């Protein structure tokens, strides 16, 4: 396959970026999208140019590092996959592909296609945990039975990989899907009940502080989320928040 790539290049956080066009040849359908970028970079290095920087690590859709806006869509055209799981067989010979970083005020660009997503960490630090000590004097695991249905739902919510595609997909750059996934995981488990009120309040407060936008229920986040995190989580978080604020 021969392709034309339009890629966002930006030297550092302060520099002004721009789209740059590259031609690339010899791409096979079995290659992953990131392997295609590897080919481009190898080419650039051999030509004495500076390769394109992008975040990636596991390359199997679980670490949440990779984060490209491909032809305007976070993680590209395929559904339920991350950029690293996207394969070139989804494209055709002669295609032009635009590649940009995730765009959001709360995700400033660091360089090229890499953005700063530490706002997500700070939301988790504000309350995304259960306050138990880790030194081991806990009760036997099976003394806390959990209804299988709730356990499965908690697990589904907990599979969020913190990639930020939901924010990049949202016209308001809202982080509701991400935040609600964590709140839901704990809300569905008996272990999470004790701190439920403070948790939702603190996490939502931090989310607002970070400059993420409001949720207007357009649902773009759910469509682009590579892990299929459902909008139900947002509804659940809203209920939790409402009951927390009316209690508090």
């Amino acid at each position, binding site marked *: 396959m021969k392709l034309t790539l339009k890629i966002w290049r930006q*030297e550092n956080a302060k520099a002004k970026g721009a789209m740059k066009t590259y031609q690339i040849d010899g791409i096979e359908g079995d290659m992953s999208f990131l392997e295609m970028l*590897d080919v481009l970079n190898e080419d650039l290095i051999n030509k004495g140019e*500076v390769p394109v920087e992008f975040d990636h690590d*596991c*390359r199997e859709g679980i670490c949440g590092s990779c984060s490209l806006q491909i032809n305007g869509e976070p993680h590209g055209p395929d559904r339920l996959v991350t950029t690293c799981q996207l*394969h070139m067989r989804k494209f055709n010979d002669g295609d032009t592909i635009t590649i940009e970083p995730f765009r959001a005020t709360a995700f400033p660009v660091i360089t090229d296609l890499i953005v700063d997503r530490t706002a997500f960490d700070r939301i*988790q630090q504000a309350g995304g*945990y259960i306050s138990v000590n880790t030194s081991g004097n806990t009760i036997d695991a099976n003394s806390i039975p959990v209804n*299988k249905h709730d356990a499965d739902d*908690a697990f589904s919510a907990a599979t969020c990989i913190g990639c930020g595609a939901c924010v990049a997909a949202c016209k308001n750059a809202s982080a509701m899907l991400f935040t609600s996934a964590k709140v839901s995981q704990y809300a569905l488990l008996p272990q999470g009940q004790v701190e439920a009120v403070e948790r939702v309040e603190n996490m939502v407060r931090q989310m607002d502080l970070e400059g993420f936008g409001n949720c207007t229920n357009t649902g773009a986040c759910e469509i682009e989320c590579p892990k299929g995190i459902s909008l139900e989580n947002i509804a659940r978080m809203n209920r939790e928040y409402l009951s927390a604020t009316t209690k508090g």
Partner: protein
Amino acid sequence: MSELKSNIPEGPLKDKWTKHKNDINLVNPANKRNIDVIVVGTGLAGGSAAATLAELGYNVKTFCYQDSPRRAHSIAAQGGINAAKNYQGDGDSNYRLFYDTVKGGDYRSREANVYRLAEVSANIIDQCVAQGVPFAREYGGLLDNRSFGGVLVSRTFYAKGQTGQQLLLGAYSAMNRQINRGKIEAFNRHEMLDLVLVDGKARGIIARDLVTGEIERHSAHAVVLASGGYGNVFFLSTNAMGSNVMAAWRAHRRGAYFANPCYTQIHPTCIPVSGDHQSKLTLMSESLRNDGRIWVPKKKEDAEAIRAGKLKPTDLKEEDRDYYLERRYPAFGNLVPRDVASRAAKERCDAGFGVNKTGEAVYLDFKSAIMRYGKEEALIHGNHNPSDKEIYDYGKKVVENKYGNLFQMYEKIVDEDPYTTPMMIYPAVHYTMGGLWVDYNLQTTIPGCYAAGEANFSDHGANRLGASALMQGLADGYFVLPYTIGDYLSKDIRTGKIPTDSPEFDQAEKDVRDRMTKLMNGSGKHSVDYYHKKLGKIMWNKCGMARNAKELQEAMDEIAELRADFWENVKVPGSLDSKNAELEKAGRVADFLELGELFAKDALTRNESCGGHFREEYQTPEGEALRDDENFSFVSAWEYNDNPREAKLHKEQLTFENIEVKTRSYK
């Protein structure tokens, strides 16, 4: 040759850990506030250690190269975590977990360490459940288990195919709690480039801010290395792209012995290589062997026809299939340990029975499992006379529930539906049992420098059993290290802050800067990947699943040559003081090029076959590994030398008092 001191406590195996905990010195809570600890790595081992140390009151700094601790490579672990809970009532016990692990490791691990691991394993599950880790459950609300290779009980706890993710997010949440309390300061997108020793003790690190390129000095009273394994020395492996040996290797250069580098695990069930562009390999969890049956065609003509695309695997009749693991190892069948399963796959493919274009793949087939579960489910749903289609649909649901994400991953990569056609799999590099030598306290040969998780060599001998790495990482981090490090730190309560303006820090920083400048100043002939791929080929071909003296010697020579070429001709574009992925890779590959040679040397020195280390010269007539307990029942701990082939060997003799050392048999 000097004797290594393993510092195993006296007394009966069962009492060692309890007694040790009672005997060691503690640091009182007020003094802990004056003590700093650096933890390099935020995977299961580092994340859990950091959280616990901070909770105990120490000031902790963590380092990781990713943008968030949550992205450490542990996140990718799929299948599960072992614990001797005996929830299934199938005869499990601490002793059995201990026994399975020592036997699985082919009698090349330390009894006392492994027993302790088994002893704390149950606590890990309690801990994780209290943290809200959503493990799989049965309808009654209690925890579910599955089986992994090399054992006859069900002791593996899991969260679908995302167990590592859920456990790591648990440790990350514990870290977050401490970050929020100001007890952990997290340095993300930072890479440790050197270990700093003051008066022979580890007192800090030199790190690079990967965004600004700034070189930083960080001091502490002790340094914990939990930087993961070195499987990427093979270029292609199931490890994350950034997984590397740098932190451990820098410590090795500063005096920490490196143990058993040649003990590598080649995992039997990975997606086969598809072409030269390949950047990494993807694991299909061992848990799939609970339900999948492995086979190749019985007749060579059929294999050839399949390779040529003229025959479909689903067209092959039962009697024309060779379920070679079930045939060779009737007692354990598809659940033999990984080293055994990998070699058996290689043997069939080498003999011409491989089933993909390259001839390097075997089938993993779920048809019987789908039908078996389907029948059960039909009954549960009150359908006593189901059609084949109904059975299949019911069964597919069950399999989807258990392994859905793995099947999806496979389909995305291979573009085939594994529910309707068998998966194709082949062995790939996955885990490294070798690592920094540590004593019973997880301390390396450098005082104050500790190693935890995959970065150390401690518990798995020559072969690790499935679902035991997560167990070991969390055991080290939550339950072992926080105790043992206290004994060392108790001597530091009056030391005060370690200054970073000492000549030792000056020198270490200068070394780091010189090295990076040198990397940037190569003649610019070839990219870093060019060298990494070449190294990987040498390692795979000559230090892989089967090794022999001649090829190991060749490997050492070829790697030495490649290393010299690398330092002279590598091309690193960009600049020192900005984000520079090529520079990061170059630093890692430089270390792999030293490790690779030591790896080959270690394999050449070990004139026996054990676990993942298979020397062609040492095998039984049936092709099974032939151990030599009389001469090789020791840990090889290597002392650094600039020229890896000159590294000095120190031996830690292994003694077995609680287990009868036998030939490992899974027949």
